[in-house]
């Protein structure tokens, strides 16, 4: 298992360097000069433009800029935002817990509903339930997040007034962040009603963000289960007189889980992309919104630093998924 871990880690290093090159160069391939954007419609004189470019180090050759950047990253310095002038890592660390909290809730919803739904659909293949479920999953998968989020807000917050419209907690609660996770911080604050408020704020954005992964997981579970349920050993297990719950829950599901876990791992990446839109709609102060704003402002350090940190996290999640395979299927360890 240790050797397996080392092999996986060795692959991560070139991947990380590759990502850093892509993150660094792609944003520079886009048209648009970050220094010129600082002044907007107000024209900047060429002398001033040159001075600011120099102060920001943007006048140096790309290779030097990249090596300098990489050197900084290796020592934990991701640079500072051109616009806000704040260190990237500080901003990332302040915003990332919000994205993780939202994504975790969403993935819990997606897994908790997606896997049972997929299993039931597979067992009742061809039934009304199966067809309805797969129809709903297809709709969920195709739903534009922006529209779906707004629809939920209008219905549940605007008309029914069951949930707050946006934000992470009611404005009446004010406590300094300890972990950055609002659910935990609200409990730690000891303020009455804070946890319930945080939870009610989390509900709609989690549902929106969970929609696509839920659909994908349900469909994937269904097809994996169908395949496994037709295997000989399942028929043998049934023939032995095992209870349907043991056949499906223990024998079939465990084998069907391998592709499902892969899907869940991949959905983490999809979710971070989805978080960009979800966070925008629900005014959720996470990294998605921060990155989008930075792209529009051509804030190079934020985009490249943010991309690198996000990529690092996705790589880490994939590594964990790989290790989980090893736990479920011992053959993979070798």
């Amino acid at each position: 298992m240790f050797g397996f871990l080392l092999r996986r880690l060795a692959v991560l290093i070139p991947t990380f360097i590759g990502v850093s090159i892509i993150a660094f160069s792609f944003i520079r391939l886009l048209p648009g000069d970050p220094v010129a954007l600082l002044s907007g419609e107000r024209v900047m004189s060429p002398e001033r433009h040159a001075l600011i470019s120099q102060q920001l180090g943007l006048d140096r050759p790309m290779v030097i800029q990249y090596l300098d950047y990489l050197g900084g990253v290796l020592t934990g310095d991701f640079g500072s935002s051109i616009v806000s002038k704040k260190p990237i890592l500080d901003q990332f660390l302040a915003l990332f817990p919000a994205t993780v909290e939202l994504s975790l809730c969403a993935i819990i919803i997606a897994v908790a509903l997606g896997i049972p739904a997929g299993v039931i659909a597979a067992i009742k293949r061809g039934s009304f339930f199966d067809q309805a479920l797969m129809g709903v999953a297809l709709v969920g998968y195709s739903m534009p997040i922006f529209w779906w989020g707004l629809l939920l807000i209008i219905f549940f917050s605007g008309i029914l007034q069951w949930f707050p419209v946006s934000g992470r907690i009611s404005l009446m609660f004010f406590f300094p962040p300890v972990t950055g996770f609002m659910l935990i911080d609200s409990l730690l604050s000891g303020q009455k009603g804070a946890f319930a408020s945080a939870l009610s704020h989390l509900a709609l954005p989690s549902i929106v963000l969970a929609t696509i992964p839920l659909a994908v997981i349900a469909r994937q579970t269904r097809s994996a289960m169908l395949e496994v349920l037709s295997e000989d050993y399942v028929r043998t297990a049934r023939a032995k007189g095992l209870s349907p719950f043991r056949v499906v829950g223990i024998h079939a599901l465990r084998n069907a889980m391998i592709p499902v876990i892969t899907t869940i791992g991949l959905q983490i990446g999809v979710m971070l992309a989805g978080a960009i839109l979800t966070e925008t709609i629900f005014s959720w102060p996470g990294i998605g919104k921060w990155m989008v704003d930075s792209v529009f402002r051509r804030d190079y350090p934020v985009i490249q630093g943010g991309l690198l940190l996000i990529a690092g996290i996705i790589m880490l999640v994939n590594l964990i998924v790989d290790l989980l395979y090893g736990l479920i299927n011992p053959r993979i360890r070798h």
Partner: protein
Amino acid sequence: MKYKLTLAAALLSATFFASAASAKTFVYCSEGSPEGFDPGLYTAGTTFDASAHPIYNRLLEFKPGTTQPEPGLAESWEISQDGTVYTFKLRQNVKFQTTDFFTPSRTLNADDVVFSIGRQIDAKNAWNQYIPGAAWEYAAGMGFPELIKSVEKVDDLTVKFTLNKPEAPFLANLAMPFASIMSKEYADSLDTAGKKEQLNQMPVGTGPFVFVGYQQDAVIRYKKNPDYWGPAPKIDDLVFAITTDAAVRYQKLQAGECHLMPYPNAADVQSMKTNPNLTVLEQEGLNVAYLAYNTTQAPFDKVEVRKALNKAINKKAIVDAVFQGMATPAKNPIPPTMWSYNESTQDDAYDLDAAKKMLADAGVKDLSMKVWAMPVSRPYMLNARRAAEIIQDDFAKIGVKVEIVSYEWAEYLDRSKAKDRDGAVILGWTGDNGDPDNFLDTLLGCNAVGGNNRAQWCNKEFDDLVKKAKVASDQSERTKLYEQAQTVFKKEAPWATLDHSLSVVPMRKGVTGFTQSPLGDFTFEAVDIAE
């Protein structure tokens, strides 16, 4: 679960409004995050609303609801005969805010003014680069480094600015957010502690509200400044709930989660007006959108051609299609809310037959041209492509073929400046300081050719008038000069003026004391909430 959540939400909103009523908390659903809290470093209105207006003051302030500067931290001032020396007398006993992180030991004095302005104009000032890459963009944009020769302390309550040349808009410039006055004592204490960058994160000023805390991209909190030198704010707490999407802001306003919101979607305004819980304020914005011909390129170098094309633009259709009526067609290059707006100029009436004839008389046949459409939505032009399509359609009717082009925003701004640029560019401007110079010389002066002057139009008569107005100190004299300049502009038609958009502010019924600013600022020192 459903019922529990409903109950929790109900309890929360009840508690929120109960506490809001007892402590009078005003919630503003702001449209974005501030870039920082040192207004000198930034140019965005969103940043100024969160920093300059609640926390700081300036030597002069714009009188609420107008673009007229009035005494702020400076009680009075004198201007030398030649218009180059401004001597300001500061208000006495103005206290800086006491916060959790700073307790001032003295009141406002001339050192604070010298510090606040000096760091922005002198590259050698120890605070010029307190944040690496600090560009002091607004001070540079208003020409402060070249204009101000020196800023000196005469005595504790007297400051003297010496200019390199007379400049009439200087007083208005000092009322702009970037010229906010900061505490030198606080800056010194940060310097000693080796935490200079904190000046941009934990602000201390003399304004009506004290900064309490900022949770990035989510909430900014302020409380009433008990030591404020001006009329005491009527609310106890001010909260900015950052909500970037306009549709979501509207939902929050409807749900009572905030009291006031900026920048609604044009499509929502009608429904806001019929909502019994809301009041909608409207005012013409201090802006203009225009189509700038390149007056150095044939055939647009001919006045008759420009006039003919202007006659073929249906501005009413643009205003209706792009703004759903939330704008007015523009005839002058400055908005009607600005002093010196010339009421007597005649706009080129929409008349396709006359336009066609004028083109034929000018000897122009089978004209093909480009119309540049901005890729972004700005307050003065929400959808440039739609406007360009309307222009394209109209021009086709007089035999002019239009190709619509667009570029990424920074590219667009850069390429459209080129002196040999082809075609006509849709662009616009939002006023900085309410001074006509900020439109007429900035956008149409000879020295702006190759820069902000997208028409590349250098007309001696016009330029002489605006340059003369820039140095005249008497406002009635300046008004006359600017009115004449607008007449020349209309006669020469370097632009087709398109629209002035309306600024629309929806708020909850019961909110009182809010005044719309023609400059687009959102300030809350006078607001109150009916209980």
